[in-house]
């Protein structure tokens, strides 16, 4: 297996799907000539030409809506948002149109569109560019949301998303773009809705997604070395659909759960996960469910404080010890 970056894994997924299906189009601001604001699409214009890799004006409601319309006629657009924060100016298209058309047409229409881009804080760019809208979007039936944490999952989930016949929103993370990992060279997908146990343990289950998985794995190392605690880390990978069974199986084994995410706490993804655990594994719990989210404020600009605002290993360790007490 080759060791490549998260960024290269995303690019490989798009390249392979562009080769596989002539209806796949990559579209977005700066994706072609500029080679991508974050270089995820670097080289694709040269390889596939301007019909398949298309620069758009800064006009999210327009070009995302255009992609949704094209998808109704069988084009499979992979639309880049430079930041998921910019989805807010295209919210009507992303939610009302992509998310509702199949339903409102009684199943006559489907929208095989992928919208992808970074949806994360932690990059010192202030509140307007640091949103993590996975919970907001996943709360709408009709929409699918995935948040890969590793290069392997980034490629497999992206390929599954492009082949999926529903709108799939892929939330990447700029801080992970240079992370390296083993990625098979042969064709594979990671189906949506399948969580992955990233670390096996017996004393505590940590449920996380996106970069919070990486943070939780660091915390698990510390908990084992310094506190002799065996932590299992469940990476959701997919928010909607959600792999309830893997979460519940882990909690039934460890009897304790800590939920970690980079969202703000109110109505975050983990609010739903906590509900599911208490509803379906209440008798298996030996302690109340713990939770670590971003500190509940708009994203602060000051880098030192933003690093405090986001979940970090020390906060996860402290919260874990509370659940284990």
């Amino acid at each position, binding site marked *: 297996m080759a060791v490549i970056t998260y960024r290269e894994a995303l690019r490989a997924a798009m390249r392979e799907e562009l080769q596989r299906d002539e209806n796949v*189009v990559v579209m977005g601001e700066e994706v072609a000539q500029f080679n991508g604001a974050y270089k995820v699409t670097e080289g694709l214009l040269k390889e596939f030409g301007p*019909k398949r890799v298309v620069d*758009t*004006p800064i*006009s999210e*409601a*327009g*070009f*995302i*809506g*255009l*992609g*949704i*319309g*094209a*998808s*109704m*006629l*069988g*084009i499979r657009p992979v639309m880049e948002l430079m930041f998921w924060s910019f989805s807010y100016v295209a919210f*009507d*298209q992303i939610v*009302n*149109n992509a998310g509702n*058309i*199949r*339903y*409102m*047409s*009684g*199943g*006559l*229409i*489907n929208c*095989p569109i992928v919208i992808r881009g970074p949806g994360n804080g932690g990059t010192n760019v202030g509140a307007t560019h640091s949103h993590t809208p996975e919970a907001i979007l996943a709360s709408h*039936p*009709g929409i*699918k949301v995935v948040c890969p944490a590793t290069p392997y999952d980034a490629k497999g989930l992206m390929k*599954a*998303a492009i*082949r*999926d*016949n*529903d709108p799939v929103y892929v939330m990447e993370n700029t801080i992970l773009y240079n992370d390296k990992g083993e990625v098979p060279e042969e064709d594979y*997908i990671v*189906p*949506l*809705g*399948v*969580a992955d146990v990233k670390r096996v343990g017996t004393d505590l289950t940590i449920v996380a997604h996106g970069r919070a998985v990486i943070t939780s794995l660091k915390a698990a190392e510390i908990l084992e070395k310094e506190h002799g605690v065996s932590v299992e880390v469940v990476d959701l990978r*997919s928010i*909607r*659909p*959600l*792999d*309830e*069974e893997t979460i519940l199986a882990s909690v039934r084994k460890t009897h304790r759960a800590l939920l970690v995410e980079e969202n703000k706490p109110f109505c975050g993804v983990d609010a*739903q996960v906590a509900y599911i655990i208490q*509803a379906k594994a209440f008798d298996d719990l030996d302690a109340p469910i713990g939770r670590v989210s971003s500190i509940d404020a708009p994203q602060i600009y000051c880098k030192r404080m933003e690093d405090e605002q986001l979940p970090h290993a020390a906060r996860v360790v402290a919260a874990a010890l509370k659940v284990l007490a």
Partner: protein
Amino acid sequence: MAKPAVLTHPESLKKPAGPSEFAKHPVNAALSKAEKVALYTKMARIRHFEQRCIRTYQQGKIGGFLHLYVGQEAVAAGTISLLGKHDHIITGYRDHGHGLMVGMSMNECMAELTGKVTGCSQGKGGSMHYFAPDKNYWGGHGIVGGQAPLGTGLAYAVKYKGLKGCCLAYMGDGAVNQGAVHEAYNLAALWDLPMIFVIENNGYSMGTSQERSTAHPGCLAKRAEGYGMAWDVINGHDVYEVRAKTDAAVKRAHEESKPTVLEIFTYRYFGHSMADPDKTYRDKEEIKGYRENKDPVLLFENELLDEGVLTPATRDAINEAAMAEADVAAVFAEESPDPTVADITKHIYWEEDNRGPNSTSRGTIIFE
């Protein structure tokens, strides 16, 4: 680029003195008698369907919003009568006329209004959300202007596939101030898409007149010039004129892959929706004036009577048949079953409705 004189509503209230100056336009001259009768029949069917809807609504059988197309029939009829295999349409929430024009049945349209499972969207869309993709009709959209980017995407797909076709995206005069419409204009012009934006200008965005909603209210189509697009204004009470001028835009799309903005002057006889008592923002005399002098169905009827295409007897038979068809649809809707509770969670995801060994999705996707 066409720069015709600007029409405004009060000035256009005179009854036409003679036959339409567009009756002999090639696209109209090419119509056989049977085709003219068919076009008139479709307009009459829209009229009678909508009027039957009022009764059904007043009987309490239609919920939600009901936006009627009465008075605007020549717009959908004239434009859609020109379209072929690779031409697509999409519109806003005043969508019944377009549905009937593309060939949706009165039964499925009426049943959708009453929320029945036999409706075109199985009772999941309602009045504002008609769809018939098998007839190139992509809705029926509830948010003002939100359909403009979607329609631009349909035109993009037609061009991407190398087909000779286009997309007509209809909107009201209120939609021209929405950002999504301007973004769609820019993309259609920037990428030379075979796109026709049709502004159905009935003079009022809900209860706000054009003068009170829109800067430079004299001509909405002219905004196309800001995007280097062709534009035209059309008297939407004359179906021959609608056909003649829309034909030029369709040719521009088909032959040159260039977009056009058409502003079609029209008028609605009833309130914005049935929830609008229509007492505060316009004069009863104004409505009367349009009904008496500008009614698109009557004007076309008179043309065809003068041409000898219709006789009073054939006219009456067509209208009686349309009324009877609407009555049958009302009964059909009445007798049709509701969707079930189990139906609420169907048609959300393609992958859920079609799960198989090769599905790209697993896990829980519908939550308790």
